[in-house]
């Protein structure tokens, strides 16, 4: 075992052991939020790193959250069954939208705008079916008394922390798995030149579809988890264009080309929002997004690799010297 592996093992043990030694509920709450959103941002970067910039991930997240909650409230279906169904729905939605895009070579700007339309549609449908979903006022899954394993509702933060940690770890694992798979080489070739990639024998449409559906399903899982944890969802918090843009923003700030980049992005954005909220209270409404906006512009102009990405690149180049 080399020191690098040892470091990873120590970090993993520390992360798992944390809630057993440190039980301050508010801090755990922030950590759970960071983990869930990190997973969502990682899901976005799974496809975003290959130049497939989707502004529709708010839509997938909304599907994950709302389908799970609706099945639970109306049919009494346990989230253990509801979440897989919601994931299938999000995957199907991704297929329906992405297939024509890829088949007809809609890339770059056009792809971003088409997916933007998708998050618009999901938001409008949630608002329009207000009899069912509560519209813009939001929606609450019915509570069971105390902690219920079947209902996937837990009162204590420690359980949620462990669940979120596990899901987040799976997200990072998927990121690494793609990083080392043939899909990565295929996708990188495609993002350079689709014609050349096709000539080299890559099935361009199929490869892009695979990665898009994977990313959409992961995002929907993040939405479902968020719903189960917060026990309240509204179109503004889990779907729509601002959520989509927020995902892109956090991933870009952290760095979309490194595994932990989106996580760093989530830590920065959520700490910033919470810090401003505690420091300034209701006076801070709007300030967090103000700072996000400026940071996003500054990062894209001066630091397109993101914080973690640039840091790692600098460390690498200095160790070579």
């Amino acid at each position, binding site marked *: 075992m080399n020191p690098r592996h040892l470091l990873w093992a120590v970090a993993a043990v520390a992360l798992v052991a944390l809630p057993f030694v440190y039980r301050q509920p508010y801090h755990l709450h922030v950590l759970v939020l960071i983990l869930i959103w990190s997973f969502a941002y990682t899901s976005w970067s799974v496809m975003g790193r290959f*130049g497939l*910039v989707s*502004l529709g991930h708010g839509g997938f997240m909304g599907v994950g959250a709302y389908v799970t909650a609706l099945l639970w409230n109306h049919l009494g279906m346990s989230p253990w069954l509801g979440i897989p169904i919601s994931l299938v729905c999000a995957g199907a939605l991704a297929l*329906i*939208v992405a297939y*024509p*895009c890829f088949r*007809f*070579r*809609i890339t*770059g*700007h*056009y792809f*971003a*705008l*088409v997916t*933007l*339309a*998708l998050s*618009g*549609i999901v938001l*409008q*449908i949630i*608002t*329009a079916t207000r009899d069912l979903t509560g519209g813009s006022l939001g929606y609450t899954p019915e509570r069971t008394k105390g902690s219920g394993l079947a209902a996937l509702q837990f009162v204590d933060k420690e359980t949620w922390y462990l669940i979120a940690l596990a899901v987040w770890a799976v997200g990072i694992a998927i990121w690494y798995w793609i990083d080392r798979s043939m899909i990565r080489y295929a996708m990188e070739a495609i993002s350079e030149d689709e014609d050349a990639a096709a000539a080299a024998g890559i099935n361009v449409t199929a490869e892009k579809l695979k990665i898009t559906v994977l990313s959409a399903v992961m995002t929907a899982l993040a939405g479902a988890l968020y719903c189960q944890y917060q026990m309240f969802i509204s179109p503004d918090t889990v779907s*729509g*264009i*601002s959520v989509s*843009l927020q995902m*892109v*923003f956090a991933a*870009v700030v952290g760095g979309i080309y490194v595994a932990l980049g989106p996580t760093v992005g989530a830590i920065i954005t959520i700490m910033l929002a919470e810090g401003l909220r505690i420091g300034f209270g209701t006076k801070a*409404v*709007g*300030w*967090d*997004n*103000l700072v*996000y*906006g*400026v*940071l*996003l*512009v500054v990062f*894209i*102009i001066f630091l*397109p690799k993101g914080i973690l990405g640039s840091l790692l690149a600098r460390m690498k180049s200095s160790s070579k010297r």
Partner: protein
Amino acid sequence: MMADIFDVYLAEAIISGILLGGVLALLALGLNLIFGVIDVTWICYAELIMLGMYALYYFYSVFGLPMWVAAPACIAIVAVLGLLLHYIVIAPLLDAAPINQLLATGGVLFFLQSFATVAFGIDFRNLGIRLPVLALGEMHFSYARLLAFGAALAGMVVVYLFMTRTYIGTAIRAISQDRQIMALMGVDTRRLYLVTSAIGGALAGLAACLLVLQYDVHPFVGLSFGPITFLICVLGGLGNFIGGFVAAFLFAQIISLGGLYSDLEWGYVLAFAFFIVMMFIRPAGLLARRQ
């Protein structure tokens, strides 16, 4: 009897759709102009309009300026904003990947929205002007919408004349056809980009003046017509002025007629669904030639 009433509503919905189409076409024109010439999509276009709406609100209702001073001032302010947007954000990114430009303007969207929240608060505000309603048989149209339609058409005609009759307009059209050659011909592309950004901003300013007559302004008002503007531009073919014009009227009819049969939101859902279906059929835009 039922049929009569139904037809009046149908006719009213169709004419409302045409009126809405004029304003949407104006919105699409500004965005298309920017895309066609500079090859950049301003995701924050609707937020510029939102700021313009606030500008007119403050000039007219708070400072009490007469409308003929307030409206041109509002247009000028948004034109300057468009210029600044290009100078500060787009110019450094001209050689970056297109998607980075898109995301940077997304950052500007965040910034402008929260700037409005911080500076103006989240209250809904309106000018407090109640324009009379025109009754045409059994149909009713507010003058605000007729005025908006007329002004939007006038604005588009002015832009058309500018693009075809003036030297700078000709240069702008030429640069949208071939970026490299124009620079070799001794044209200062940077200056043309700035002029185009200012015109795009001015169009947003005009749209703001027209929209604030009909709708309340609040920091998130951009989200209610921003996405639809992008869809119109993509449907018409980004940078294709005539395509955008046709698409705007198509979309407006779908929204208006869809809204007739159920809620307005379903009109929007229908329009979005129509858009996705059209992407299957005509991925390069409504008027694109088949390859």
